[in-house]
């Protein structure tokens, strides 16, 4: 019935939201930096996929593999050269810095690509999947699957690899990690790079679902915020829970209030969470 | 004579952890009460509960005849309870005298910033920091910061002063200086509760000693009573010998 369809829609959307937010949440949790560039990175990833598809026919699902190292490098360089200089400064300065950087990137994209919305339409299209009363567009479903896979991979990297454990250590206690021999600044650059990578990859996936324009960057950023607050900072499982929760809430909210109020609803939720339970649905930092 | 501070069956939980349980304690006016116990016994938690930083999970606290169990820190401060922090908490970018003037202005009796500064200077002279009144607080050494904490506490014109490890990190000469200051403060009529690890300080300074262990008060009494108490010795195995050494 309808409720089930709405729920499935919400979960599919939520999986994408989780991917959008996972990298953002990691950077916030580890570096204590809110990367206002994140939304623009996502849009950049979408453009990357768009042009790769249009020029050399590279399928967006494969474009992720190409985008990953490029965006990782971009993120790492930005962090090492710019963000790192204000890493110990008050919250206000880091926020203002990333805001300024985002203005620059966004303006550059506007000049290069114009504000016109573009669409990456797959040729041939993937069609829909029907399971009983529920229909899901296949492209969304696959995108969501890949987004979740990416998020799970991030989780595995954080929990199994040496670099991942170092990142978690820095997030838990920067000074202790440094005393244990972790090169904290290198970890910062790597983490920021991972954040950019996740953004670029998410953007490539989103390119086949949502219209692409530099104007969209603020709405992606807004979603990332809400997911972080819902799910708790620096935690990948938190991003997943938060993403899915947001997707479902928006889906039902769109039914109740109309789709144009979706973002207001999510922002209202954000304020409510911040006031009532700032540590997120998962409670105290969910160290993974 | 009713006690200045009365804790009745005070408890404080942090989630599942019982930091304080069933603590009943009285602090008499004019005395110097030592609060000792192994690390993690709940000493700082007790001070936090009295000053309102943490709310008591159970029990009541009365000060100077009135109940203060539910008061917020700034309210407790205005009632005449001052405390120093184990890890000193100055206002780093403000000068030494501004730090003390703040205390005089907001909790002490000073009317207006000018009078607060004048009062502050007196308190700084008392702790022998008068010469560096205009230095930024962050430039002070640890010993000086501890004295600054003390000056701030005094500027609040407290009836009760709670000292939390005011001697941690000081060398013997600095400790003697601090001891002298604390005695003079007590002589001026301020009741003191002092958390201390150094038995030398506790035995030389305190009229009575209270011992906390795992959040429970296991003994309250004179120095002799406490040092010879079996439960205290058990909690504190090595200290008995240090105590015997210090008293000779």
């Amino acid at each position, binding site marked *: 019935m309808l409720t089930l369809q709405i729920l499935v829609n919400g979960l599919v959307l939520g999986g994408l939201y989780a991917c959008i937010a996972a990298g953002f949440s990691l950077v916030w949790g580890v570096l*204590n930096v809110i990367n206002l560039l994140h939304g623009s990175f996502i849009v950049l990833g979408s453009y990357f996929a768009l042009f790769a598809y249009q020029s050399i026919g590279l399928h967006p699902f494969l474009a992720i593999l190409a985008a990953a190292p490029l965006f990782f490098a971009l993120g790492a360089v930005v962090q090492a050269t*710019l963000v790192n200089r204000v890493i110990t400064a008050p919250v206000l300065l880091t926020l203002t810095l990333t805001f300024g950087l985002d203005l620059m990137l966004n303006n550059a994209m506007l000049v290069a690509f114009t504000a016109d919305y573009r669409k990456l339409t797959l040729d041939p299209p993937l069609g829909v999947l029907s399971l009983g009363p529920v229909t899901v567009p296949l492209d969304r479903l696959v995108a969501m699957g890949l987004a979740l896979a990416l998020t799970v991979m991030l989780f595995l990297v954080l929990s199994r690899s040496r670099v991942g454990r170092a990142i978690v250590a820095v997030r838990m206690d920067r000074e202790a990690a440094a005393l244990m021999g972790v090169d904290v600044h290198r970890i910062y650059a790597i983490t920021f790079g991972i954040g950019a990578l996740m953004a670029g990859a998410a953007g490539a996936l989103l390119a086949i679902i949502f219209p692409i324009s530099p104007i969209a960057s603020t709405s992606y950023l807004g979603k990332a915020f809400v997911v972080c607050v819902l799910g708790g900072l620096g935690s990948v499982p938190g991003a997943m829970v938060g993403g899915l929760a947001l997707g479902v809430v928006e889906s039902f909210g769109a039914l109740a209030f109309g789709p144009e109020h979706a973002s*207001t609803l999510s922002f209202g939720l954000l304020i409510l969470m911040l006031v009532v339970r700032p540590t997120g649905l998962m409670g105290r930092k969910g160290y993974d | 004579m009713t006690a200045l501070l009365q804790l009745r069956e005070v408890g404080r939980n942090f989630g599942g952890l019982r930091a304080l349980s069933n603590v009943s304690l009285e602090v008499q006016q004019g005395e110097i009460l030592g609060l000792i116990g192994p690390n993690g016994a709940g000493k700082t938690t007790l001070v936090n509960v009295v000053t309102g930083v943490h709310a008591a999970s159970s029990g009541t606290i009365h000060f100077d005849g009135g109940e203060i169990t539910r008061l917020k820190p700034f309210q407790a401060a205005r009632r005449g309870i001052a405390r120093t922090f184990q890890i000193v908490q100055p206002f780093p970018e403000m000068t030494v005298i501004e730090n003390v003037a703040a205390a005089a202005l907001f909790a002490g009796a000073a009317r207006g*910033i000018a009078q607060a500064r004048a009062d502050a200077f007196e308190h700084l002279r008392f702790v022998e920091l008068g010469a560096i009144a205009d230095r930024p607080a962050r430039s002070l050494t640890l010993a000086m910061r501890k004295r600054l904490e003390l000056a701030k506490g005094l500027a609040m014109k407290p009836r009760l002063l709670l000292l939390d490890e005011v001697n941690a990190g000081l060398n013997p000469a600095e400790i003697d200086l601090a001891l002298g200051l604390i005695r003079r403060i007590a002589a001026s009529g301020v009741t003191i509760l002092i958390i201390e690890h150094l038995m030398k300080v506790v035995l030389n300074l305190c009229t009575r000693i209270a011992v906390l262990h795992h959040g429970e008060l296991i003994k309250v009494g004179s120095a002799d009573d406490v040092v010879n108490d079996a439960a205290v010795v058990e909690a504190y195995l090595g200290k008995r010998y240090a105590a015997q050494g210090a008293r000779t």
Partner: protein
Amino acid sequence: MTSRTRQIVIALAVAAVLAALPLWGSSYWMRLGTFMLMYGVLAMSWNFIGGMTGYPSFASAAFFGLGAYAGAIAQKHGVPIALAWLWAGLLAAAFASLMGAALLRLRGHYFAIASLVVAEVLRELANAATDLTGGGMGLNLPVPQLASVEAQARFFFYAMLALAALNFAAMLWVMHAKLGFGLRCIQQNEAAADMLGINTTAYKTAAFVLSAVFVGSAGAIYASWVHYIEPPDVFDVLYSVKPIVMVLLGGAGSVFGPLVGAAVFLALEELVWRNYLTIHSGVLGLLIVLLVLFLPKGLLSLSSRLGRRLGPSSS
């Protein structure tokens, strides 16, 4: 207090120069002057909560937009213009004290984000409440009946000047009063301030309300001045970010810093707009980046570094 007297004298001199602007300036300069004064109000107001108390507020756009719509709607219902401006300021203040109860318990990033989001929510509400606000189609205001275009320009210039003067007076008073001292203590170490007997909740709320009241009126004056407003215009996030950049530019916590910052920022913005229209936001971004990286304590800190004195302070 000689430093306070000195500050008052300087301020009066500046005000006199500004008040004389309409006599020698063209309407272009008056328009710039009005904007500069408006920016000055935004910057000085932010200074209460951001500079003095240390809470990175991004709520300016919320107060500005709220004031703009409050003043506009009042005027449409026949309220005299000056009263509408007053009403806008009071409404913004009331809103701030309500919001403050929820928001001021948050710190750092969380406070910043929440304050930013409030403007977004208000924007959406303004968009949705079409009957009241005209929704996405915007709101037209009655144009004041004055002799000429120049007279109108002068009217709004003096209105902003008066508001800026009030704002400055408030800031000066706070900085030298117990409130200012308390706010500085909170900014340095809130827990210690609490233990010293400062009612931090009351003080923070006072700062937040002060950061809203003048901005609300400024929004209303702006609305009357341009006589057409719509949600994305008056709730623009840049109205939250620009004051911060201005205060960073001029130097936080000092009496003249916000005004200096506002003036310099406006000058730069005008230069960039006239010469680099398509990339003006990018250039603004670059400016912000350079400012944060190389001049985090603002321009006035340059002069004090040259003079080898300690940084500007109220005492």
